[in-house]
Structures are given as structure tokens and as C-alpha cells.
């Protein structure tokens, strides 16, 4: 659970910064921030499953 929480905290912080510095309108920034957050989470979960099955 700790790993998941830390990963979520990391995704939130990175998404806030990426969303703030990118795009031109507030709507686009929020949408981009959410997209980045979801991508971080999804890729993190995917990598964790791949690593889970590795024998080393």
C-alpha cells in the first residue's frame, strides 16, 4: 500500500507541474494534467505487474 501511495503522490506532483506549464487555456491545462496523472498511474501499474513476474 505504501508503494501505491508514494507512486500516487509522485504522479500528482508531476501532473500538477506538467499541467501548469503546458497548454494555453485552463481547460486544456486541467485536461493535460489529468491525462499525465492517469498515464503515470497506468504505466506504473503495468510496470509493477511486469516486474512481479520477473524471477530476479
Amino acid at each position, binding site marked *: 500500500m*505504501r508503494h501505491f501511495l508514494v507512486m500516487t503522490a509522485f504522479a500528482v506532483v*508531476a501532473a500538477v507541474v506538467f499541467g501548469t506549464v503546458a497548454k494555453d487555456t485552463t481547460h486544456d491545462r486541467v485536461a493535460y494534467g489529468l491525462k499525465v496523472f492517469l498515464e503515470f498511474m497506468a504505466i506504473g501499474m503495468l510496470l509493477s505487474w511486469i516486474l512481479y513476474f520477473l524471477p530476479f
Partner: protein
Amino acid sequence: MSRAEIEQLNHETAPVRAWLMGLAAWLVPGLGHLLQGRWVRALLLGGAVWLCFLGGLWMGGHLFSVGGNEQGLSALLQLPPMIANLGSGVLYIVSWFFGAGFADDPAHAARATYEYGNTFLLIAGLLNYLAMLDAFDISAGRKA
């Protein structure tokens, strides 16, 4: 606006104020935007960087420095993470002054959150570089 005019605008020298804003944004995360009256951006960007850095220290992360004690390629390997850490500006400087986060003992590294802390500290600096560029661009009129 013609293509030549746009290119000329892109190559114009940035005003001194923009460099100062960039410097302020690097030195104190959030300050570059705050000085330009961008409260929300300052709060979001500065808050994210401060939170990330303090979170990293709290988790027991390690701050990198090139102290001259390293042998061979060791110093070279310390350089990229040190550059990332340096992005946190005054947070890194104050930590260095008080020796917080620079401990290099096995007990410290044995903490379960040590690697997370390292990552958070590195990312805090790198995100602040992004914030710094944003503050520079806004001040130079290249960004709304």
C-alpha cells in the same frame, strides 16, 4: 505576422528582467511566478516543488554533491544527480548548510523509503527547472 517577423521575435534577446525572474524562480521555487503576480501558478508550481523536496527528505532521501573525495569516475557519476538536486535552489543550499540529506551511512540507506526519497528529491529539482523556464518565458513575453 510574417514568418520573418516571427523568427526575428524568437531570436530577440530576452530582457534582463526575464533572466532575473528565471533566477528568482530557480532560487526559491514559486517566487518567479509570484513576483509576476501569477499567484495560482506560483502556488501550484512552488507548492509541488516544495512538497516534493520536503517529502523526499522526510522519506530519508539522499542529496548528491561532488565533494572531491570521490575517486576516478565516481565524481562523474555524482554529477548528473547533483545537477538535478541543485534545481531545488535554496532548498538544496539550506540542506547543504545544515547537512540535512547528505548523510552517506548504510543505516540511512537501509530505510525502506530511501530510494523513494532519492527520486522525490531528484524530481523536485527537475520540476523546478521546468518552473524556472516557465517563469522566464512569461517574463520575456513568449508565453501568456
